[in-house]
């Protein structure tokens, strides 16, 4: 399964509409033209597809979210009690988490 993406996606030379706009159009078509005709399990599937498109669209538009540096070592240090009450680390974690939420979560919150 292809999982990796380049950190920075430069789409300026791609044909218009650019892929994020294309995803937005695909999602709108799904929600406006397809979902109203569905019920039950197929409707649930279609709404999940719309949700997945929204996440992919935000990822293309939303810049980069690198992994925290030395994340594995950081985990071990937290577990060992080396970062108890470390307000600076808490702030770093919160900032990183906000970037992750901007991609994965609905923007309403």
């Amino acid at each position, binding site marked *: *399964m292809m*999982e990796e993406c380049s950190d920075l996606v430069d789409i300026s030379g791609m044909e218009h509409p650019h892929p994020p706009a294309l995803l937005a159009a695909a999602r709108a078509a799904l929600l406006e033209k397809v979902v109203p005709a569905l019920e039950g399990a197929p409707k649930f*599937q279609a709404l*999940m*597809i719309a*949700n*997945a498109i929204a*996440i992919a669209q935000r990822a293309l538009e939303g810049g980069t979210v690198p*992994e*925290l540096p030395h*994340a*594995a070592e*950081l*985990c071990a240090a*937290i*577990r060992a*009690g080396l*970062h*108890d009450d470390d*307000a600076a*680390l*808490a702030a770093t*974690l*919160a900032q990183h*988490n*906000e970037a*992750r*939420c901007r*991609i*994965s*979560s609905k923007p309403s*919150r």
Partner: protein
Amino acid sequence: MDEAKRAALTARLPHGTRITGMSLLSGGAIQQNWALNVDIHGQPAQWVLRTDSAATLTHSRPRGEEFALLKAAFAAGVAVPEPLLLCNDTSVIGAPFFIMRRVHGTAAGHLLVRSETLGGGREAAVAALGRELARIHSVKTALPFLTPHPPIAPMLRFVADMRAHLDATRTPRPVLEWGLRYLERAAPAAADIVLCHNDFRTGNLMLNAQGVTGVLDWEFAAFGDRHEDLGWFCARCWRFGSKHEAGGIGSRAALYAGYTAESGHPVDDAQVRLWEIAATIRWAVIAISQAERHLSGAEENLELALTGHIVPELERDILRATT
């Protein structure tokens, strides 16, 4: 279910019982539930037959154990479907099954949290749910298949379990480690050990206009701290977007009052809030493992894949509760 299975099933039912209708209610990857309409000497009755799906891959709790848990809960006065008959003989319908009385009501979380009337109104509903939880925690029936709680504080046991799960996954999770360390430092030295349901949350609880009609899904029942179930119920991730802090349905005060009225045990709000952090971590670990089932190719499925994307929001809840 074909004619031969239906005939074999009828032969196992009490004398004079005739199957008048049968339809699949829900077919999960693990269990199947069949609505069974029967006629017993002229009296109609509505039952549910619960059995394993053809391809049971996971180590789900055997039907016989689930049946024993339901019996113990029913005897303690918990609102569960009355368990009627267990059959471990796989030659009847191809897998072990049990039959319980069918209960009626609404369980869907998004409907429950929007209703002002189900369960007799929000405050009455959560008070009734508090009483149900108290009755579950009062179960004293010997259930030999349940592992005794180890001689360690339940919260420390939880921290150790979650760390073991995280060690087996591919991605480092600093926020979950941060939350677990917070719990490790805050954990009380000891707690009463009671039978916990361990999945007592909106979505698994059936209500009608009058009250609670069914506490469902006993798959995860185990011994633990009484505040564990209260925290799982109140955690923000199980409120379905509602502002009401007890399960998205009503107030904490009403839930706690119902619990205390039935059990005689006061609820320690600080402990419930610690167990809410634990609940959020537990749900994140489950979500990670569901996404992993998709990522590994074991079960490619969009629902599992999207479940992974709720983890950042759960991590946000953990950070907000611990900083």
